[in-house]
């Protein structure tokens, strides 16, 4: 569970880590967008080479990226198989009932597969090299203009960062409570649906209780340290846009231009 939500960040200090998170955040979305422009072997190979180069620059064990594929492995398989056997074709190599297999469908299926891999690798790269708090800072910074319409950007950002801070704590608490109830004879995931849902009551109630007590303690601690209402606060954490971020943007621009040249029309 921990691995799913958090703990994705891997401490490190390679070039990718040092990039401004706002840039990383926006460029990742941008890249996911331009992946859809690729439409031939050359363009996919080119994008793949670019992603692998970025992975190389991050100096992170390749295994982590492969692991990133695992949670949605079935979705990938399903989509690829769907493309493989259900793409109608006038020159099928093989067919059985409504299933057809053709050269085109094989090509399309492999494109889809590569597209998945590209998107997952690049977003894994973002989450592995960017702490949740940096992402939350980026969101704050990107949403800043909304302050003009009285949207409480700083308060929301603090809320978000505190929530992020407490996720691992609550995950630990959940594991502990689950273990305690298991030791008292609860079987999770056994019996019918009703029984299964019921077996979560002994976890949810203690979890609510401890969340409230954490929230209360934290509120008292924050007040005792002079937190009023978010107004008049200064910021310790600053995001710095530097030369290498400019370079990254230029690289991304170059990638886009090359991509537009080599894709087929």
């Amino acid at each position, binding site marked *: 569970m921990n691995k799913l939500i958090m703990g994705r960040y891997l401490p490190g200090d390679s070039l990718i880590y040092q990039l401004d998170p706002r840039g990383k955040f926006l460029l990742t979305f941008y890249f996911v967008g331009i992946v859809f422009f690729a439409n031939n072997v050359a363009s996919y190979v080119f994008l793949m080479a670019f992603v692998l180069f970025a992975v190389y620059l991050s100096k992170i064990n390749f295994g982590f990226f492969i692991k990133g594929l695992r949670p949605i492995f079935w979705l990938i398989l399903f989509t690829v198989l769907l493309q493989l056997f259900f793409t109608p074709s006038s020159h099928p190599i093989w067919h059985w009932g409504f299933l057809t297999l053709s050269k085109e469908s094989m090509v399309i299926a492999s494109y889809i597969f590569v597209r998945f891999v590209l998107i997952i690798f690049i977003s894994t790269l973002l989450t592995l090299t960017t702490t949740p708090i940096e992402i939350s800072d980026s969101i704050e910074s990107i949403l800043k203009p909304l302050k003009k319409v009285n949207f409480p950007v700083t308060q929301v950002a603090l809320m978000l960062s505190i929530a992020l801070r407490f996720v691992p704590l609550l995950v630990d608490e959940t594991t*502990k409570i689950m273990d*305690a109830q298991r*030791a*008292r*004879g609860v079987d999770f995931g056994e019996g019918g649906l009703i029984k299964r849902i019921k077996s979560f*009551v002994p976890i949810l109630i203690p979890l609510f209780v401890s969340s409230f007590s954490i929230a209360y303690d934290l509120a008292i601690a924050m007040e005792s340290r002079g937190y009023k209402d978010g107004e008049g606060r200064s910021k310790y954490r600053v995001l710095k846009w530097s030369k290498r971020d400019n370079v990254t943007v230029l690289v991304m621009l170059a990638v886009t231009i090359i991509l537009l040249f080599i894709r087929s029309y």
Partner: protein
Amino acid sequence: MEITFEHVTHSYDANSPMANLGLDDVSLKINDKKFTAIVGQTGSGKSTLVRHINALLKPTAGKIIVGDRVITSETNNKNLKPLRKKVGMVFQFPESQLFEETVEKDIMFGPMNFGFSESEAKDAAHKMIELVGLNQDYLQKSPFDLSGGQMRRVAIAGVLASNPETIILDEPTAGLDPVGRHEIMDLFKSLQTKGKTIILITHNMDDVANYADEMAVMSQGKLVASGLPSDVFNSQKLLEDDLLTLPQSAQFAQSLAKKYFQFDKLPITIDELSAEIKQQVNGD
């Protein structure tokens, strides 16, 4: 119940690039009907070790024999109830496991899961509430209206109510005031005299000296010593390597031995210390 660990290794996140060893080739025998203390610094693997006894964790390698059950990496998640009924576990800050509307229902929760009839479970609740030092009036209260110390007692009652043969305690007195601490520790000692096997994880060396028959010392996932407390606390090597601190009586004896006094073996309880001092002061 006798519990035997045979070359047990446990690796967290075994298949991930971040794998780390929680237990490293631990072999240990915990004797039936004894009070065994497990000590070691935070993160030394004590909690990981005991979570194998009721199969909350399974070994990556090696096996654990609990009575007539063998737990290995292959052990199925089904059919663990008989084991968990025999091995009761009081977690750190166990009050966080309470969830029922009344204290009585909460104490009955474990027994009912383990197949007690409602009247048997009710009966157990009535007995246990007294055993942990609260009276019957508490049964109909909401556990969330109690003080922290009372909640702790209710949680302990909830574990004892299933009448486990072995009781594992993970720092059960953390955060209690001294009176509460002694009461709870005395309760566990009395359960042992009634035939239960007690396993206690603790940082309090005086509790080890005063209550335990046997002890095991963990460090970085490894078992570094086990045996009688009087022997283990006299192991020069453990103390030099900073793997163990001494009970107060032994510390006092150590300082006292700087002049005039001599101890062949460090006394570990206040009674032993007092007897030694009397003998040496009043002449042999």
